[in-house]
């Protein structure tokens, strides 16, 4: 493989710049066509055009079927699409005139169809097709002149394109749009500088959701991971390990909605006879029943946190238990010979041995805690200062239609998650170097 590549690329070395220039010019043309389309201005009677079929018509058709019938149909159709992708990847890169024309056809037909199934409006359809063809041409040309031989870039693009399209439309574009929105007012019409951020930190809703989110992110991962770790260590030396693990893992499989309902029967508060377990215990000891979910300050947040910890501990336990078993037994024996007791061995042998698994668990739970929505929505609905950023964001946009505030909250949350991801990326880099 390597020699072939070299042979092909050497005589072309000079024309590399030419390739670059041609691609650049084509890209500029595509952008120009796009701008030209925008300058064309709105058309009063724009209507969607189709090739006779579109994504929308497919969704309409399948939406009319019985839910259970939709499952196999979607799976099969999606399987066919993936199959076509794999066939393209397999056959297109091969040398030979037949495969050459296959690549030509794929490069020009696929972008056009992809744009057309979106049903562009009539006033933009010419430009859309033009841009699609131009994009296809760029792809084909770049592929044809690829250093590794024709077909290389093609298969790479085909591999990555589905994921790239999803990520760009679903995460990158919304993220950028949210950041922009956070500087605009409720309706999105007026630029208001940092007003929404000021609101976030001064309004009681915003203020408490920030405070509570910090509490969630600090307490939940530490408590859940410690309990999970301790349990994993106990279970490792207990009889009926599998059985015992099951009980702590079960909450992981329960939805937060289900968890909320389960814990309602723990936190319930009423006059007369208590049906909530916690208040029953309190009154049994002669205390006054407490409205746990209305108890301010912070007690109600702690109560919600307990539900989250309850459900995340199983996750931590399962992961940590597996990595505890991977700690070499001879390290334990060596420590034992040196006279270390069980506790010392746990802290000096086990914990360092599972450090990287601990980091994975801690960051996963922290991110989950930062983004939490369901527990708050189901149990308190943000009442009594229990709101968190993830909930308040949705609350602002659903109840108050206030997109500016909602976006500002989102950006604050984003800033909380940022250091965690940076840390993980650095960690990832370090591991790559070791390998």
């Amino acid at each position: 493989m390597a020699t072939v590549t070299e042979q092909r690329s050497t005589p072309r070395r000079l024309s590399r710049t030419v390739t670059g220039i041609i691609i650049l010019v084509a890209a500029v043309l595509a952008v120009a066509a796009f701008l030209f389309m925008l300058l064309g201005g709105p058309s009063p009677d724009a209507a969607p055009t189709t090739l006779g079929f579109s994504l929308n018509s497919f969704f309409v058709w399948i939406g009319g079927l019985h839910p259970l019938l939709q499952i196999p149909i979607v799976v099969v159709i999606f399987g066919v699409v993936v199959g076509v992708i794999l066939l393209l990847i397999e056959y297109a890169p091969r040398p030979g005139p037949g495969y050459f024309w296959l690549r030509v056809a794929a490069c020009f037909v696929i972008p056009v169809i992809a744009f057309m199934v979106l049903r562009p409006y009539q006033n933009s359809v010419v430009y859309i097709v033009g841009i699609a063809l131009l994009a296809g041409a760029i792809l084909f040309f770049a592929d044809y002149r690829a250093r590794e031989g024709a077909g290389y870039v093609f298969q790479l693009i085909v591999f990555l394109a589905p994921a790239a399209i999803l990520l760009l439309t679903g995460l990158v574009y919304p993220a950028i749009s949210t950041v922009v929105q956070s500087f605009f007012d409720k309706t999105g019409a007026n630029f208001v500088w940092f007003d929404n951020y000021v609101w976030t930190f001064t309004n009681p809703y915003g203020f408490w959701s920030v405070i509570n989110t910090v509490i969630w992110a600090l307490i939940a991962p530490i408590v859940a991971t410690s309990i999970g770790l301790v349990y994993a260590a106990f279970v490792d030396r207990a009889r009926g390990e599998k059985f015992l693990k099951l009980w702590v893992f079960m909450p992981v499989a329960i939805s937060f909605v289900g968890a909320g309902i389960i814990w309602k029967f723990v936190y319930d508060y009423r006059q007369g006879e208590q049906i909530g377990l916690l208040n029953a215990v309190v009154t049994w000891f002669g205390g006054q029943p407490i409205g746990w979910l209305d108890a301010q300050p912070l007690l109600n947040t702690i109560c919600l946190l307990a539900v989250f910890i309850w459900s995340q501990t199983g996750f931590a336990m399962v992961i940590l238990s597996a990595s505890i078993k991977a700690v070499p037994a001879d390290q334990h024996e060596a420590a034992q010979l040196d006279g270390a007791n069980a506790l010392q061995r746990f802290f000096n042998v086990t914990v360092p041995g599972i450090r990287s698994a601990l980091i994975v668990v801690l960051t996963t739970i922290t991110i989950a805690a930062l983004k939490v929505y369901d527990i708050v929505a189901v149990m308190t609905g943000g009442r009594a200062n229990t709101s968190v950023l993830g909930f308040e964001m949705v609350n602002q946009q659903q109840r108050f239609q206030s997109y500016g505030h909602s976006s500002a909250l989102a950006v604050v949350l984003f800033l909380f998650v940022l250091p965690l991801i940076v840390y993980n990326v650095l960690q990832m880099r370090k591991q790559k170097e070791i390998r």
Partner: protein
Amino acid sequence: MATIDIDAPVDTRAARTAQRNPRKEERDARRKLTSRGATFAAVIIAIFWTIPTFGLFVTSFRPGADSNTTGWWTVFVNPSFTLQNYFDALTSGGTALTLGESFLNSLAIAIPATLIPISIAALAAYAFAWIPFKGRGILFVFVFALQIVPIQMALVPLLSLFSRGLTIAGVGIFPGFSLRGIDHSFATVWIAHAIFAMPLAIFLLHNFISEIPGELIEAARVDGAGHGQIFFRMIIPLAMPAIASFAIFQFLWVWNDLLVATIFAPSASLPLTQTLNSLSGTWGDRWYLQSAGTFISIVVPLIVFFALQRFFVRGLLAGATKG
């Protein structure tokens, strides 16, 4: 979970002794390994963890009038049980549909929303692992870092993209989906779930796929297989543990999701979680139905988990514990 392979190095002398005297050795090992204190402590924690669920389990079998007035523990003093809650729960529900119908909706949402992102992510993960290209490392870190974006942040722009389409300066590129009045439209929910799963799926599958020995792939290339064949015939079977473990994760996550479905699903296509949440009645007086409904909703994730559990940890930990 106990079926996980342990690649701990075996001490040869111990192994030889064990061979010589297996039964005694085993007994000794067990005595050394299990300790009564540890078992006791573990049981205590397990009980604490199970009591809330157990309480709900008991409640789900109690007559509604009882559970609204007395605590579930009183059932041990004067027992009275019924299955009526389960029948009632399946046929009652929120505004638009019953719990039974939304159970089917949940299935119709969760199965495609698990399979679609896994296949797309596996393709991308393979490209990241085995097709060298310029900027691969940076791009991969970027995809991983997209986990930063909170789902809540993406909901509104995505929703408006789906319903109003993309119109730049008055020029319509994509008019949005017109899915109003469709009986059961899950398309937008599938797409949304697929999108939100993508960063983690690519990351986890990449960790596993990139650890497949390079010689295997090199050999297949020499034999004339293209990337399509290698992916389909070698990578998919070899990466099955990772795929299965992510499938469990994604299925649990989609099945238990409330937020994405609330935003994207039309009212006749709402999943179980949403109906369950609105089952309590306006004044919270029908908790007994919720308790039965909760157990109906737990059954499927538990089945999925037990069916695939032996893959669960192995796939998740690939690439995380090494180094």
